[in-house]
């Protein structure tokens, strides 16, 4: 299966990116194509694409594990919320064309929007080093990844709930209580919304911040929060649909 040769449009469809993006990646060496010598057309080995895109979560996790950050690849990086909103609409358009989704695409987009918006809303002006978020997805494998090098969930929530001492407590609070890290504003619904959608639909959601890791899926009645090491600098999230 991995040796199957794909045209550039087939490869673009599989990865959920545009043909122009693939051309750019080819030029930069991010994802090299095979060129037919006579035609000059670009072809891709299916196995190369799978290898390239399978590691999106690892790429994002590596990004938030590093002590010192650097900008992610431009196609996976939204420096500002405006860029994120544009790419969210692009994701929405791609998802709306898929006929094999078990969950309404509007719920997936709304959920991802909340996770990404949270990063911007809580870290604007306080990013650890790199402003903005990592945002990538693989529509073939049906997963979406987001990450930020922000303050992390404990620092953010401790401002309004000083009794919090661990990332696990902060994560429990974030996903169950209406409590905003932007007091005196009363909002703080975003991650409750995420939790509700995941447990009511055929979805799996992973969220890491600091030394806490949440795994949540359809039908869960409580939060599964475990300790993880090494420390995540900010947050990283993955939705499988």
């Amino acid at each position, binding site marked *: 299966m991995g040796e199957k040769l794909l045209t550039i449009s087939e490869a673009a469809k599989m990865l959920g990116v545009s043909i122009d993006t693939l051309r750019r990646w080819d030029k930069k060496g991010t994802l090299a194509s095979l060129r037919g010598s006579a035609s000059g057309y670009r072809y891709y080995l299916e196995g190369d694409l799978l290898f390239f895109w399978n590691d999106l979560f690892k790429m994002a996790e590596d990004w938030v594990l590093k002590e010192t950050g650097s900008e992610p690849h431009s196609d996976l990086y939204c420096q500002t*919320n405006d860029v*994120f*909103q544009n790419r*969210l*609409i692009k994701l*929405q358009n791609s998802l*709306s064309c898929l006929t094999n989704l078990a969950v*309404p695409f*509007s*719920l997936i*987009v*709304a*959920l991802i*929007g*909340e996770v990404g*918006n*949270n990063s*911007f*809303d809580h870290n604007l002006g306080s990013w650890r080093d790199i402003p903005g978020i990592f945002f990538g997805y693989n529509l073939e494998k049906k997963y979406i990844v987001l990450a930020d090098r922000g303050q992390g969930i404990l620092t953010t929530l401790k401002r309004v709930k000083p009794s919090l001492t661990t990332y696990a407590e902060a994560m429990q609070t974030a996903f169950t209580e209406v409590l905003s890290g932007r007091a005196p504003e009363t*909002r703080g*619904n*975003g991650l*409750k*919304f995420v939790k*509700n*959608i995941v447990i009511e639909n055929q979805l799996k959601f992973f969220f890491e911040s600091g030394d806490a890791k949440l795994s949540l899926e359809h039908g869960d009645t409580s939060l599964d929060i475990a300790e993880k090491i090494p420390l995540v600098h900010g947050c990283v999230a993955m939705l499988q649909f």
Partner: protein
Amino acid sequence: MLIQVKKFGTTLSSRPMGKEAYAAFLPVLREIGKEEKVDIDFDGVIVMGPSWADEFLTPILRQYGDRVSLLNTKNPSVKATLELLIPPSPQASS
């Protein structure tokens, strides 16, 4: 008054966009009569999340409360967002 939410966009996600929508619409909201009903129509909305809705809808609901009717709320993201922002009242759930 009829508020057609799709006129603010069909993908309604971020707080800054919700805040801007509310600020831009405020002069129109001020024209609502003292006893006038307010219909908020979600027809045509593709995606709506609680961040946008909290900035746009929450202040309208707070101000006009029981005069507000929410129409065409079947879109799954609209439905999920409204359920979160407007928990069923004790009366409605009993």
